[in-house]
Every structure is written in C-alpha cells, then in structure tokens.
C-alpha cells in the first residue's frame, strides 16, 4: 500500500492524513462543493471533487469514491468514522476494485453493524444484552428507538409514553435514512441512570484479539458524547477484568479484525450489558492513544497490510494493555448550548487552539473557515493527558480556558463547566448527568457579580473604542494607537 484515499472530511480526515504522512503514504482527499477550502483538502497530496454538498450526493457516493481511487492510483481506502465507515457494501466495492479497505472484514462488519444481529452474537458469547426487540409493547416504557444501522446518536430517540412513539419513530427513521441510507429501527429498554463504558479492540488477520483499558463516555447529551476519559473513575479492577474479557469474547465470536469498539451500559448495581459494537475507528480513539502510546490509524493500516498485533505493539513501553496515566477528551461542537444545543455553523472569525504540556487538539477547522451546515457539527477534539486523573482534569480546564473560538457558538464553555464541576472531579455522574444539569437552568456555574462587573466594564470599553477608528498599521502596542484611544475617551 502506497497511496490512501481518505473517504471522509473534517477532523477525522485530517487525523488520517497526518498518520499517512508520517508513514510516507500518499494521501488522496475527496471533497463536496462546500468543502473545497476544508482543512483536509489543504493538507492532502491530491484532492478530487465528488459532488454537491448533500452527503448522499458526495461523501456517500460509493461509485464516485471508487472512481477517484482508480483515477488517482490509490491502493487503499480509509473510511474514517460516519458516512460509509460501517457500510459493508462499500468495503466490498473497495475489495472488488482491488483496493485495501482499512477496516474490518465485510462479513464481520455486516454481522456487528446490524444492532440486532450483534446482540445475538453477544448473547451467544455469554455476554448479557440490554432487553429489547422489534415490539415496543414487549420492551416496555421508557424505551429507546434506535436505528439498526445507527451510531453517534443519530436515528435515536427516547420515548417515555406510548403516545410519543409514532413521532419518535418517524424522526428516527428519517434521520437514519439520511445518515446511513437505512431506515430500519428497533426498540431497547431505557436503563435507569446507566454509565456508558466501552472497550477498544484490535484484531489481526491471525485471530489475535486485544482489548484495551475501558473508556468512560457517560458525559453525553441525548446520546451524543461530549466528554470521554480513560480509565473510568468508576470501574473497579474486578469490573475492568470482566468488561475486557466480555469484549474480547465478542470480538473473537465475530472473528473481528482491525479497530473496533464494544459498548456497554453499566447499571447502578455494577451489572453490565452489551449495547452495540462500532466496527470502525471511534471519535474518542485519541484518549486510548494517549494512555497506550499506540497510533490506532497506523495500527489499522499495519493490520490491513497483514502485520500481527504483537509486532505493532512491540516496543511500546506500556505493552499497550496497561494504561499509562489518564486522558480526557472534550468534543468541540459548533452548537449553541444557550439554545438547546442547536447547530451554530458559520464563519470562524478567530481561532487559537490550546497548547502546552499534555494537550492535543485534533481539529478540522482554521481561522477564516466557514463551518458548513451540511454535516456533523463536530469541529475539533481537545485531549488532555496527565499522570493521574486530578491533574488531567485541571489540565483540561486550563486548555478549555485557552481555547479561543469566535464567530460561531461552541460547546467549549459548557464542557469547561462540566469538567470543572465537583461532580465530575468526584467521578459521580452517569449518562443522565448532562440532561439533569441542563434541566436545572442550563448554567453550570453560579453567577459571579465581580466577574459580571468586569464584563460590563470590558463591554463599555469595547463599545467606546469602536467610536474612533484605529489605524491598522500601528499594531496593538503602538503608542500612537494607544494615544488615539486615550484621546477618544476625553
């Protein structure tokens, strides 16, 4: 494999391109009309247009992607996450075109990608599953409507009473159709205050399955993850051992290869249930990278080339399995928390990402770029690593204070409130935590009159400053500019 087609956009396309560049692989980007100036197009060696903004006419067009691969001479395809990442027909089309698909075998993808078939495989492997099925009355309320092909919270709706079922099913079907091209749904019992814990797997072509230390993903809003960390503050060594063994058993039963993730719900009694398997690289894979030293995109490529996992993880100080330190990820979405997290696309007028010790910013954005309306609102991911959890928490709060994004609304301030809260510091939260926080009044911190006064002063100075034109050539600290401002105050 010498040249990889990256069949995706945004931060994950950038993430994949970076590893390819480090491995000396050529990179081929694809873009829809509104993504002509996107960061992944700027970074790749080659870039090809694949159609209009709507994903169904561009990023989901298997024929166009295969055509670009042929024309560019690519010999491998990385699907990222979302779009066609869990589409077995795409993996098969790649194989037929003589392209190496960087991901699992289509058969395993098909089996585990269907939520209902995956549940059957997990049960057969002796792992408990969340009660559910095709009949909402048999499942009982409250329940979840879930897309059979779903992921990332799309095509999913909670229903508390039978009267709300019809509209929830319609919304879930319609979202599932536009996101995955498959509108089938099923029903699952909604557990009381569960925690969402997942186990990353790597499988190679020789039947080796390696589970990694769990990721805690309970900080979510309407099934969209906001903050993830590893290891989980709530998982005991005993539970960890059982979760990893269960994940390994499922991976083995599915004859799984490449990177995949087994998701579990853990109830208040510490019992766990298999939820689903994601047959792709996860959005939150960087936190596992930070505590293991492994590059999962590189591992996927090496596995696709036939390298055994033992060779991939050789030389890692941690031996990959034992987590070294603690890592937290915060997802930065172009959403407005003050308006129910509605999308807030638009021009990014200012952007300065956090840096310094232990901070990583996986972003698809830059200052002057317009976040388009057509796609997922994830703009970037901030990852903080530290030797222990308290230090990682404080490091993340520090990084989010540094993160300067203006022009669009983002979830940065909201997530800083969450990560900086006493409940988060204590590790006392579950999947309902964020929604309960929002019910309280939407604000994560009490009003601070002294800070409000400072804000009022700043707003007054800013408003006053604008009444005189400042010379753009004299720089911020030029005595002439400063004098002009002082004069303007007279």
């Amino acid at each position, binding site marked *: 494999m010498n040249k990889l087609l990256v069949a995706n956009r945004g931060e994950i396309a950038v993430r994949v391109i970076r590893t390819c560049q480090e491995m000396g692989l050529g990179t081929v980007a694809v873009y829809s009309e509104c993504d002509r100036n996107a960061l992944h197009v700027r970074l790749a060696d080659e870039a090809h247009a694949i159609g209009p903004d709507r994903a169904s006419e561009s990023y989901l067009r298997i024929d166009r992607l295969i055509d670009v691969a042929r024309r560019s001479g690519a010999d491998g395809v990385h699907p990222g996450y979302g779009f066609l990442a869990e589409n077995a027909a795409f993996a098969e089309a790649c194989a037929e075109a003589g392209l190496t698909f960087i991901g699992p075998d289509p058969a395993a993808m098909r089996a585990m990608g269907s939520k209902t078939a995956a549940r059957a495989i997990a049960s057969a492997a002796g792992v408990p599953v969340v009660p559910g099925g095709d009949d909402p009355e048999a499942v009982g309320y409250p329940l979840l409507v879930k897309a059979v092909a779903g992921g990332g919270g799309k095509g999913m709706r909670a229903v508390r009473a039978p009267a709300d079922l019809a509209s929830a099913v319609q919304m879930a079907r319609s*979202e599932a159709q536009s996101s995955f091209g498959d509108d089938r749904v099923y029903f699952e019992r909604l557990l009381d205050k569960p925690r969402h814990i997942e186990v990353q797997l790597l499988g190679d072509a020789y039947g080796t399955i390696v589970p990694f230390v769990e990721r805690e993903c309970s900080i979510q809003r309407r099934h969209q993850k906001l903050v993830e960390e590893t290891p989980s503050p709530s998982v005991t060594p005993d539970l960890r051992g059982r979760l990893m063994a269960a994940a390994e058993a499922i991976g083995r039963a599915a004859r799984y290869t490449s990177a995949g993730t087994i998701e579990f719900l853990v109830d208040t009694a510490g019992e766990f249930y298999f939820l689903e398997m994601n047959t792709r690289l996860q959005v939150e894979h960087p936190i596992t990278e930070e505590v293991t030293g492994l590059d999962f995109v590189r591992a996927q490529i090496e596995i696709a080339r036939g390298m055994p996992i033992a060779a991939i993880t050789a030389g890692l100080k941690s031996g990959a399995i034992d987590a070294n330190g603690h890592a937290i990820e915060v997802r930065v979405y172009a959403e407005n928390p003050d308006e129910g997290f509605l999308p807030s696309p638009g021009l990014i007028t200012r952007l300065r990402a956090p840096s310094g010790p232990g901070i990583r910013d996986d972003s698809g954005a830059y200052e002057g770029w317009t976040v388009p309306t057509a796609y997922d609102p994830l703009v970037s991911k901030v990852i903080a690593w530290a030797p222990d959890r308290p230090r990682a928490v404080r490091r993340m709060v520090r990084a989010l204070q540094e993160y300067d994004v203006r022009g669009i609304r983002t979830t940065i301030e909201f997530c800083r409130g969450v990560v900086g809260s006493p409940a988060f510091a204590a590790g006392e939260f579950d999947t309902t935590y964020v929604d309960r926080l929002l019910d309280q009044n939407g604000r994560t911190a009490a009003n601070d009159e002294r800070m409000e006064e400072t804000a009022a002063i700043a707003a007054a*100075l800013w408003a006053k400053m604008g009444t005189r034109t400042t010379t753009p050539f004299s720089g911020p600290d030029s005595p002439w500019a400063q*004098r002009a401002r002082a004069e303007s105050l007279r």
Partner: protein
Amino acid sequence: MNVNVTVGGRPWKIAIEPASERPRQVAVTVDGRRRVLDVSWIDADTLSMIDGGTACEIRMHRRDNGVVGVEIGGRIYEAVVQKGFRDPFSASRSAKTDPGTFSAIKSPMPGRVLRVLVAVGDSVAAHQGVVVVEAMKMENELRAPRDGIVKEIVVAVGATVEAGTVLVVVE
C-alpha cells in the same frame, strides 16, 4: 463619559475617562468606586486588562441584536450596550419588534425545513413542536413559545432557510 451596560440582568452605569498622559491608563468608575485600569487592545475584539496587578484576557464575541458575549476565564457573559455608542451590528439584523400579540417562530440556524407539524388555524400549546428543521444532519424540532393559534405558515417543506428566517407566526 458614561456608558450603560446590562450584564446578568443588571444595569451597570460605567464612567470612563483617561487616567493620565500614559496611554493605556483608563479610569473607570462603577457604583461610585473609581479604579485605574491598564487596558491594552490585542486586536479589535481582544483586550488585556490589568487591574491593580490582576491581569486577565477578555475576548469579545460579536452577536446579533446588540448583544456582545464577553469571555473572561472561560466563561461568557452576555452584555447589552446602550445604543448611541458603537453599533457593530448591521441595521438589517437588529431586532424587529413584533406586535405584542404575535409570536414569530424563527429558525435559529441555517437549514432545511423537513416537516411542518401544524396548519393555519390550529391551536398550539406552549412548547408544542411546530416545525422540524434539519441542520448538520440532525432534525431539530422547533416549538411554540406560548399558547396560541397558528396565524400564518411562512415557509414550505423543503425550503432552505437562514438563521432568523420566520417560519410560523402564532397569534
């Protein structure tokens, strides 16, 4: 000179004057308390303020309708500056006051109208879903702000709308 600003629902009367011949020194009086601040503009929307040795960076977020978000230490405070000073907001985007008995349900973001859940003449309850707008692959159900009767449906299913586009009017 005095500037009136509202932050956190509270009005602040702020007097600003130059403090000395030294360029960045500004005297600010709030509630009768006078302080000399060292104010340096990093760029047009970013200021570094030193207040008696206490330093902070302040980031201004330009919003619509006369509101400015003031970010200090990772928190954003919404401020409304009294008209007559700087008006960085184009006139066309300023708040158009609706007659008291009408409520316009506007799209808060650019997107596409997927479904209209009500018809003209329907009575709607506060928080009842009225229109579904798709943006960034998520379906967002927009709700009635209060009880009322649907007076007008301004948009059609499939229409592309901008932020602020009126979708439905409730009387």
